[in-house]
């Protein structure tokens, strides 16, 4: 039951085959707490430990987590924790503390963070855009959890959480979207403003407070109280559908207006990834974003998109180091990362014009 096993498992739900042209993955998160216990941020160390063990004991008994992974952050190496963050299995906040743990299902679709900001953060993560199916899984997990542990709940305020921004449903539904068309067209500010005004948050690749490298954004609901789960999901679904349409419009317009210049841009990114000797994380992500776009438009075979998605993960700093087998400084990582990209792209064909 280790991070190594998770890495060895090719079934990485956020990246494995099944991601779509615009929506990389769908995520449902539910914040839950044990009744009668202080929240992790206010509990004393022994209380936190007691809460963690109680939650873990209940979770490993659930059928969903049979033969799954139990990872206590205090016992994991720094690099292994960072790998979990890069795979979106735990948050930066959980990984940086000592009191937290993660229980992860065998197929890595379901995970529960224990002692993050709340006692329990349930997460279901699936590749592509599958809001309904992802929600159904989360609902089942929530029911199973409520049957196993007494949860803090109020008739008036719903599920009680440490932070007022999560109280009520405790639901954060999100889509990880790849928006190179809107970014290249310079429309991202406008899009972000429109989404913000209608109650949706737009964040970077690794969630709260992170940068949007590789034109990848996470779009999620902000309100959790006074709205039923169904309405929250419908609202997000409406906007994601709209966003996917806008993104495709932007892509088509770019391909049409810029013609050969546009293809040249994608081909140049391919050239850099194929031949560079040093690649920073953000440079690699931005170039891979172009490659992904090339696959979506038929400039490269669409079947290669999954490989590009895998490289987006493999190019992350902790992944580069863990695959290398030892910690590397920034220059060492850039060297290794470039080697990984060169090797992986060896078998790729040339970038051609978009298919009609």
């Amino acid at each position, binding site marked *: 039951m280790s991070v190594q096993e998770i890495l060895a498992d090719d079934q990485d739900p956020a990246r494995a085959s099944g991601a779509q042209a615009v929506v990389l993955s769908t995520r449902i998160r539910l914040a839950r*707490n044990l*009744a*009668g*216990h*202080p*929240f992790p*941020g*206010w509990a004393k160390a022994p209380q936190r430990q007691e809460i963690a063990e109680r939650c873990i004991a209940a979770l490993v008994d659930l059928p969903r987590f049979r033969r799954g992974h139990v990872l206590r952050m205090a016992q994991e190496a720094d690099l292994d924790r960072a790998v979990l963050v890069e795979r979106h299995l735990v948050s930066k906040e959980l990984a940086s503390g000592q009191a937290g743990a993660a229980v992860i299902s065998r197929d890595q679709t379901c995970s529960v963070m224990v002692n993050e*900001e709340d006692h329990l953060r349930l997460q279901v993560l699936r590749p592509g855009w599958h809001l309904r199916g992802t929600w159904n899984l989360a*609902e089942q997990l*929530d*029911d199973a959890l*409520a*049957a196993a542990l007494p*949860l*803090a*709940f*109020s*008739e*008036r*305020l*719903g*599920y*009680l959480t*440490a*932070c*007022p*921004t999560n*109280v*009520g*449903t405790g*639901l954060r539904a999100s889509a990880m979207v790849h928006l190179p068309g809107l970014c290249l067209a310079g429309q991202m500010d406008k899009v972000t403003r429109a989404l913000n005004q209608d*109650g949706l948050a737009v964040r970077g690749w690794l969630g709260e407070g992170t940068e949007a490298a590789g034109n990848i954004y996470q779009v999620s609901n*902000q*309100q*959790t*109280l*006074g*709205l*039923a*789960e169904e309405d929250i999901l419908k609202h997000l679904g409406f906007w994601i559908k709209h966003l996917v349409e806008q993104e495709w419009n932007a892509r088509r317009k770019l391909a049409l207006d810029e013609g050969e210049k546009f293809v040249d841009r994608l081909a140049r990114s391919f050239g850099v990834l194929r031949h560079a000797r040093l690649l920073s994380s953000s440079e690699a992500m931005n170039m891979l974003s172009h490659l992904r776009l090339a696959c979506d438009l038929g400039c490269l075979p669409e079947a290669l998109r999954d490989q590009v998605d895998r490289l987006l993960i493999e190019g992350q700093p902790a992944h580069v180091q863990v695959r290398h087998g030892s910690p590397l400084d920034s220059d060492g990582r850039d060297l290794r990362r470039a080697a990984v990209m060169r090797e992986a792209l060896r078998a790729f064909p040339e970038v051609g014009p978009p298919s009609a």
Partner: protein
Amino acid sequence: MSQPLQCSLCAEVATVHLSQVVGGKVTKVHLCEACAGKGGAVDPAVFQLADALQAPAAAAELTCPRCGFTDVDFRKRGRLGCPACWETFGGALSPLLLKVQPEVAHVGRAPAGTAPLGQLRHRLAAARAALATAIAAEDYEQAAKSRDEIAALEAALKPA
């Protein structure tokens, strides 16, 4: 006297010790490096944090009887101490809640065995809408179903 001083803000060992003399009165603050850094107190010229600590306005007005968390703690951390804090601070938090949430009443899921009022109200509103739609469409079978559901929900919502 060998015991190290505790940080005035958290439980860490204090390594930064501030003394401030105002009008002949000496106040001392002991901070760990992390807390001192946050308040800019590592720069001896900046005593904002000490001011904040000594300010009478910082006196706690509400305390959670269950976990000892106070409104001052909330102002500092932006997070509550325990589920029971919602009882203690719920009223005081309402204006803040309305800034981040559309309404201060839960209408979503509940653990098995509980039926939150908000959820019942939500279902009642939905049933009334369904009734109106059914009547407009002259679907009297559906209208009868909705009418029964409304009656049941109204009964459940009536105070005992």
